[in-house]
């Protein structure tokens, strides 16, 4: 089973995370500052790192940049700051994901699982044939199946159509009526809010935290897009 390094200066948080992760069947190694984390990473084979940002001795961002010099092990940042700039900084330095404190244990475990699956099983393999891949989301157009980080997600045909259309145009913003026209292939005539409802459902099924979507994003007052 995968080994996870949990690094936080707050011992209580480390032990709580240990309990959760061990309950899921993962092996865990504790560390209480960035320096310890680095030492452990040099000595042991670790498949995932949970890294707190604000720590004594060596803070999370500096530790992360040192880790990235040596390995590409998945790193999830734990941060108390919810400002966008901090998130952007973390992702730029090389974090694979981030969770803001106080976090929901269920959400955290979902993210851990997602990162591990990607790292261990998929191995970044290229999409082939009729499959389409964007981030951790993969759709197989032949079997009409969708997986998020290898985990199957069941969608209604309409939701599937919308997702497929958005994945075909990553980064592009579509207004609800435009989406309706392109996916339903008819004029909306006041049915635009139907699109919004479908998008919400899609988000709830596909995203780990639907309130803070990573892939299917709303651009308020303009439309929706697939983050690439």
């Amino acid at each position: 089973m995968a080994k996870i390094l949990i690094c936080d200066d707050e011992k209580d948080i480390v032990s709580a995370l240990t309990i959760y992760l061990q309950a899921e069947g993962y092996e865990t190694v504790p560390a209480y500052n960035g320096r310890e984390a680095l030492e452990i990473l040099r000595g042991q084979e670790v498949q995932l790192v949970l890294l707190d940002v604000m720590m004594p001795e060596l803070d999370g961002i500096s530790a992360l940049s040192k880790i990235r010099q040596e390995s590409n092990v998945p790193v999830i940042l734990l941060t108390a700051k919810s400002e966008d700039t901090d998130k952007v900084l973390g992702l730029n330095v090389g974090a694979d994901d981030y969770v803001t404190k106080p976090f929901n244990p269920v959400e955290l475990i979902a993210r851990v699982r997602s990162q591990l699956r990607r790292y261990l099983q998929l191995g970044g393999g290229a999409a082939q044939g009729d499959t389409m891949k964007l981030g951790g989301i993969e759709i197989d157009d032949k079997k009409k199946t969708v997986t998020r980080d290898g985990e199957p997600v069941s969608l209604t045909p309409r939701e599937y159509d919308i997702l497929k259309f958005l994945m075909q145009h990553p980064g592009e913003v579509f207004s609800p009526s435009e989406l309706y026209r392109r996916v339903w292939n008819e004029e909306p005539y006041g049915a635009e809010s139907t699109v919004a409802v479908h998008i919400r459902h899609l988000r709830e099924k596909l995203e780990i935290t639907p309130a803070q979507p990573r892939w299917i994003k709303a651009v308020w007052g303009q439309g929706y897009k697939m983050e690439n």
Partner: protein
Amino acid sequence: MNKLKGSLAAKIVAITLLAASCLVLCGAIAGIAWLDGMGAYHGSKDEVRETLLDNSLENRLYPLTNDLRALPVNVVYTHADVRFELLDKNWQVLAGNLAEDEEILREMSYPVSGFYQGMYFQSEFEPLVTGESLNWTNEADDYEEYGSMDEPSPLPTPTPKPQTSGELKKPEGTLVYFIRLCWTDRCEQRAWGTELQMLEMLHPWRYELIAAAVASFMLAVLLFVFLMAAAGHRDASGEVKAGFVEKIPADLLWLVGIGGICALIAVTGNVFSDNYLVASLVTTALCLLGAGLLALLCLMSTAVRLKLGAFLDSCLTWRFLRWCWKWIKAASRALGKLLRGLPLVWKWIPPFLVLFFIDLVWTLQWYRDGDMLVLGLVVKALFIAAAILYLAIAFQRLRKGAKAIAQGEENVVIDDEYLFGALEDHAKDLNHIRDGLSRAVDERMKSERLRTELITNVSHDIKTPLTSIINYVDLLSREEPENEKTKEYVEVLQRQSARLKKLTDDLVEASKASTGNLPVAAEKLELGVLLDQTAGEYGERLAEKNLDLRVTKPEEPVYVQADPRHLWRILDNLLNNILKYAQPGTRVYLNLEKKNGKAELSFRNISAQPLNIRPEELTERFVRGDSARSTEGSGLGLAIAASLAKLQGIDMELSVDGDLFKVILRFDAEE
């Protein structure tokens, strides 16, 4: 060059050369003028010679007639160096010293009037061309009396001369004679020889003379420029120093200088005498030299002063004017101070007294003249109107500024230009009030920023223990409960820790939004799309609470400028509010319309609880620190929405009408 300028010897040489070149220039100009008078630049040398002879003959006429009047004719014969004959009107020789055998070289005839053998000759006529008829214009009998003069002249060698005679007027009661003047071979050469010699000498050099004049003029200018440049240089250092002469005030120096020059020139005019030619020439030259030197001294001294930039200061007149100006200023300042010192209420007295005095003098002066009295009245009325207008404008300016300050406008500056006295003081005081106000506002902004920082930092610190609490409560809830109560308590803990989490997040956001500490990235949005998206997000949740969402919007798209995320946060908060507080089973209206160039987005719902709170209190909760009334959430939703709206320049209006709760967002609509 500086060495040359500083050298005294060079200056003395330059002055000497300047004097010499001026002398040469004068001489050359005199010579040129003389030669030109003879026509040396137009005709041949012989013609010039003839002109010279003619001129010398004419010069003899006056002394001769003078002699003829004063002396017996026989004395005159011997005395005169020129040959002459006195003829009557019939060209009969009355007297003369011309011998028969003399060869005439040049002759001229002049009509003269007077009394023979005696008394008086008048030589006022133009020379007469020999053989020319003289046409008297007087009465015919006069003409008869003196006979005809049509006969041809018996005189030999008529000289071709330009036509000179015209209408001549005969003096009344006098006899007319002719005087014939000639140079003959037996005349003494000295009578006209000097001039002839001069002509012989100068004529070949006539063009060189012009060149000499030009050259000496240029040399003089050059030397003059050098002297002006060298003025004040006393050594090779190139430094300009004031000397003894510069101690004399400039205007005084010029006064003395011009006086001296005038005096010397006057002397020149007076001393000249033909009798002492050499002496008077020397005196004249000396006087002119003196005048020139004096002028040079004044000019050089002026040059020194100009170089030192001290010309005006070295003028007595200027110093006197400055002194006067200083005193006038001091006096007016003292008077102004006196007037300013008057209490505001008494300030009307000086203008009143001045007006009254002017009125009095005017009336006394012109009490008879109605026009002037009326003119005075009109001028006075205009003056008073101008004064009142000035006061009104000044007061208006103060009023406007005070109003702006009172309304809390930033960067109000009351212009105190052209204001004086109490008005100026007032403007300055108002500006000070404004400064104090803006300082206070700045300090408040600063303290709000600090508060935001404090709240942010504290909430970060709260989040870490909160994480543990949430996690362990969650772990607790997974354990098998020992009894039912434990399970209940854990649920409370879960609910309240979730609320605490929400509260910390909202606190940071509310504090940031209310102090404007958030970046705003406005984009062009379509409110219709936003409404669809909102309906999609909230429709089902509202339906779950048995609320019927009714959305109405215009057919055409409505574009506005707003930050999409902030705007969504506003809508999110408002709809969450509706979810929480709306009476189940009622309708919720979401309405978009365009009104007078504004896009209006309104939310209406029926409140489940009676709203016994004023709308302002709902949005100012955070600012005022009122206790939250709600049991769920932070109660900061509306406050955050209001702050975010204000931040983006969106007008958010809350109103409560009984149980109807209404929020209107007003945007500036875009095309």
